[in-house]
Each structure stands twice: as C-alpha cells, then as structure tokens.
C-alpha cells in the first residue's frame, strides 16, 4: 500500500472512467487533445494512452528537415533541484514517464497540437490559481 506515502495535498484526478470514454479520434494513432476530458491522448505502439493535463508540465516543438518533433514533458519528482517541490505526488517512489517525443511530417498539425496543449495547460493552471485565491 502506498496510502501512507501519499503526498500531502495531492489532488486526485482521472481522465476516463473506462475505455468507453475514449474519443473516436484515437483510432488515427495520432496525438490528440481531448479538451472536454482535459487530457492528451498519446499513441504508443497501438495503445491509446491518456495523460491528464495536470500531469503535463509543458510541450515543445521543433523542426528538423522534413520532420517536426513534438516533445511533451510531464510532472515528476526530482526536477526542481534545491527548490521546494510545489507539486505533490500520490506516490513519489513510483516510476514516472518524464517525457515523450513524437515525429511527424505534418508540421502544421503538430503546430496545432502544441498550441492546444499549451492553451489547455494555461487554462487549467489559471483556474486552479483562482480556486486557491478564493479559498484563501
């Protein structure tokens, strides 16, 4: 049981209750942003892997020749050396996905996905901030 280790202040979040919640678009095996579920769905060797925006730190994009690379960084412990962690974790001793990088020749679409992730992250962060201020 990791209950005792559960980080203080960690707030439970969940993308989908079950497989039926997945949007149709995952069939395309492409990175997809599901705004309604506040989730980015990653295609990983045939699996549809949802990652909630809360677990996402940021995204970056760069072009190299014919390809565009999209990298998504995730919240993990041990990233703020010397600083106090402000993101609590349910199980800090678990194995974390720290980042994934995708490649596509469709730079336009990756541009869009990058913008959608960045905007969704901004939106959710702002809302959390407002909630905190209201609570104070």
């Amino acid at each position, binding site marked *: 049981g990791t209950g005792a280790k559960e980080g203080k202040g960690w707030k439970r979040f969940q993308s*989908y209750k079950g*497989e039926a919640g997945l949007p149709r678009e995952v069939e395309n095996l492409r990175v997809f942003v599901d705004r309604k579920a506040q989730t980015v769905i*990653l295609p990983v060797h045939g699996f549809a892997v949802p990652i909630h925006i809360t677990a996402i730190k940021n995204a970056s994009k760069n072009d190299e020749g014919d390809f565009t690379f999209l990298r998504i960084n995730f919240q993990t412990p041990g990233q703020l050396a010397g600083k106090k962690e402000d993101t609590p974790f349910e199980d800090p001793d678990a194995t974390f996905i720290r980042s994934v990088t995708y490649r596509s020749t469709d730079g336009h679409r990756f541009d869009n996905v990058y913008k959608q992730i960045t905007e969704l992250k901004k939106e959710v962060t702002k809302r959390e901030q407002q909630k905190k201020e209201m609570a104070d």
Partner: protein
Amino acid sequence: MTTQFDSIYHGLSPHLGKFRIAASGMAWMNNETKEVVATPVAEIKWAQWMRVARNFRLRVGLKEGRRREDFDGFLRDDQEKLASLLKQHFGVILEVKDVSFKGWNWGATDFQGQDLAFLVSNKTSFELPLQNVANSNIAGKTEVSLEFNTSASPSKSSKHAGDEMVEIRFFVPGTHTKDSGSDAGSKDGEKDGE
C-alpha cells in the same frame, strides 16, 4: 463453418483486412495486397482481449518461439462471439487484459516477454516492444531513456500515417538507494556521490 470479421488490422499495419476463424485455424487477409497471415489450429496456445487505440485487440499466443499475433479493430460486441469461437474451435479461453485510462504518468514497469509494460494501478497502460528499441541511456542514475527505430525517409508520409514515437524518458527513483529513516532534508539537494 467459417466466421468472418471485416475491417480488422494486423499488428500496427495501416491496412485493413478480413479476419476469418474456423476449426482449422485463423487467417487474416489484407484487403489491398491480398497477403494472408494464417495461423493453423496446432499453433494456437492462448488468446487475450484488450482495448487499444483501434478499438479492441485480439492477441494470439503461438507455440512457435513464443511468438504472437495482434489483430486490432474488433468491436466491444465481438468479445462474446470471439470467446465462444475460440473455445469451440481451439479450446482456448479468451482472457481479458485490463487497460488503464486514468491519465496518470506514474506506475510501474514490468518486463513481459518481449515487451516492457507500463502499469498504472496494476493495469496495463501501454507496452513497448523491446525489439524496436534502437538505443537506451541512463542519465543521473534515475532517468532512463529509450529511443525507437524510425523509418529514415519520410516517404511513407501518407495522410493516414500515425505519429511516430521516437523517444520516451522514465524517472525511476526506485533505483536510488532509499534512506527510510530520515527523509526530511535528504530529498532536496541530492548529491551524486554514493
């Protein structure tokens, strides 16, 4: 008697095909190339059912060299039908593999045959076929990165192509020696020395 399922994919191939099942075995035929992947009854050892990106997957374990075949594109309603066909024709139980949709980026890794599986709350989140790993790296004792083989040329850049994952990085704090006694103060400013 043969039962046919339309619109089925073989492995991660982008081509649709027809999947047929009969007492003699199973066969998948590519709609475009007419290429056939046939699995005779004597080869079939086990079967699994799981949700993947392209709806549901039938995974069939083969006797030969611990190989297996994946067929994607089945519908939820196909499960019962498929389960009874597999039992009737091959005496094989269609086991259900639970998949996580929680949206968490933490869990545990587990080596399962030729795959590295990532489990969230003990359910599969995804599998990484190790034969596709081109390179791996360990940085700072707690970070493991895996790079995947990718096609060199963008020739197959069809409009229907999926996104290629080229790299994944894991943070593995468990590989670090834990100091269970005093955790206050030891978490920040970890030094590299042992």
